[in-house]
């Protein structure tokens, strides 16, 4: 997105140098681009976008529970991030287990987890003692609230996700493409499907910080969807979506800071526009 900005960017670069918050946000954005690009490509390819959305919404339940219990029982280690990771992984396994074993319709369980997570989150936050919790930053995201420990968590979770994908790349691809055949070749398909859902869950936790619960799905799916319009090789799709997410995260942060607009919506808006443009460009390329 080459927009000639009406403002010059020196203000942003000054901020990066002088304000730690901006530095953290930028760092978190860069590191998470790798995670989002990789996992987003798998999510789009395997068509589990709605599972990712349900996980994102269930995260509010974890955040709410963490805030409630940490305040009621004075547990400082129980941060919203811990609650979010636990809730996301739990939902991923419930959805995975139900669709693999219980024979319930997948979309039904997705809807149930989605609403259950939001409902428990809102109730916990309602009953949590102490100062009021700002829901807005969770629902719409605020990358500028990134703290030093958040950056560390982002890096650690990102490294875990990328290592697992790196080690099991071919098995994950095979299970996504043809679960049955993978099983015949001695790959425990169910375990790898659950692994994919777990990786998606961790990504959604990181994503909620940037774009919030509601907008996070767009940021996960749109770069990979744009990329897969231009390549039919998964690793190329992954590289393109990493690149796009990197541009969206850093560019979005810089421009939204400069123009003083909320970061999450701004990033998602750009991602959507580029995705829309990709149809036009593809048509022009074909003509």
């Amino acid at each position, binding site marked *: 997105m080459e927009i000639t900005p009406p403002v010059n960017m020196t203000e942003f670069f000054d901020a990066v140098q002088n304000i730690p918050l901006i530095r953290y946000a930028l760092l978190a954005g860069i590191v998470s681009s790798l995670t989002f690009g990789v996992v987003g490509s798998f999510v789009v*390819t395997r068509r589990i976008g709605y599972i990712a959305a349900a996980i994102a919404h269930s995260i509010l339940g974890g955040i709410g529970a963490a805030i409630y219990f940490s305040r009621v029982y004075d547990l400082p280690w129980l941060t919203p991030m811990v609650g979010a990771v636990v809730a996301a992984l739990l939902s991923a396994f419930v959805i995975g287990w139900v669709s693999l074993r219980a024979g319930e319709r997948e979309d039904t369980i997705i809807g149930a987890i989605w609403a259950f997570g939001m409902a428990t989150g809102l109730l916990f936050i309602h009953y949590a003692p102490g100062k009021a919790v700002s829901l807005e930053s969770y629902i719409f995201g605020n990358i500028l609230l990134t703290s030093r420990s958040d950056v560390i968590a982002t890096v650690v979770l990102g490294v875990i996700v990328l290592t697992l994908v790196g080690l099991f790349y071919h098995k994950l691809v095979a299970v996504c493409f043809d679960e049955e055949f993978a099983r015949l070749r001695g790959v425990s398909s169910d375990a790898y499907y659950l692994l994919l859902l777990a990786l998606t869950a961790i990504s959604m936790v990181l994503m909620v910080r940037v774009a919030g619960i509601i907008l996070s799905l767009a940021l996960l799916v749109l770069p990979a969807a744009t990329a897969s319009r231009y390549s039919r090789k998964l690793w190329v799709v992954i590289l393109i979506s990493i690149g796009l997410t990197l541009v969206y995260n850093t560019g979005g942060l810089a421009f939204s800071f400069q123009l003083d607009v909320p970061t999450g919506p701004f990033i998602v808006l750009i991602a959507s526009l580029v995705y829309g443009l990709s149809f036009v460009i593809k048509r022009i390329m074909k003509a």
Partner: protein
Amino acid sequence: MRSNPVEDTTIALSNGLCFGYGRQLVLEDVSFTISKGESLCMIGPNGGGKSTLLKLMLGLLEPNRGTLSLFGKTPEEARCQVGYVPQAVRFDPLFPITAIDIVLMGRLDRHRFGFFSKECREAALVALEEVGLADLSQRPFSDLSGGQRQRVLIARALACEPELLLLDEPTANIDLSVEEQFIETLAQLKGKMTILMVTHDLDLISEIGDSVLCVNHRVHRHSLPLSGETIREIYSGVRRVEHDRRARHQHGDHSACEHD
């Protein structure tokens, strides 16, 4: 080798096998043997249990009663000796993957972490060569024609270096114009390994089949020491012949069936 010749040539052995989803039995009292090097075609009406029998042989389903063994082992234990070719239509045509990457999936049991070994890549290329698609190895799956996709799936099964090849209606979605070439590909495999395929394709049966496994609730093996022409004649009205036989089977008249 000489001491136990039966052991050496029997690939599959089914004895009194019964299977049902829920209470309804799909397969009942199924007994047959398949010997090394044979090419068998599995025919029968839809819902007669062909796919179920294939899944039992792959160890994806467990028999309710009776036994089924491959290479003297359970089907699950024997998986590494079995190559499986599903129908190509089952797959997501938008999946971003190249032909060679699909074929490499046949080597997954020899792969642990990270990249595939050089040996696996070479084996995959050889398998693609065998089905005549070596020059399309880097082509995305979605760019291939129906026949080419099916051949990629055969190459994937060949990359397993199987002793027994199971195919599920390999010519079901192939244009007539390329079918001949496709059957030629399969015919080249005949004799190199034991082949069992579900098919309704008369050309395929006459070209490749040594015998026919007739699956309709029960299973009967029909030897076909017949010429291609004769098979064509018999099966030109495959449904009529099948129903006729089924009716007679049920009345205990097996005169139309040549059992082994």
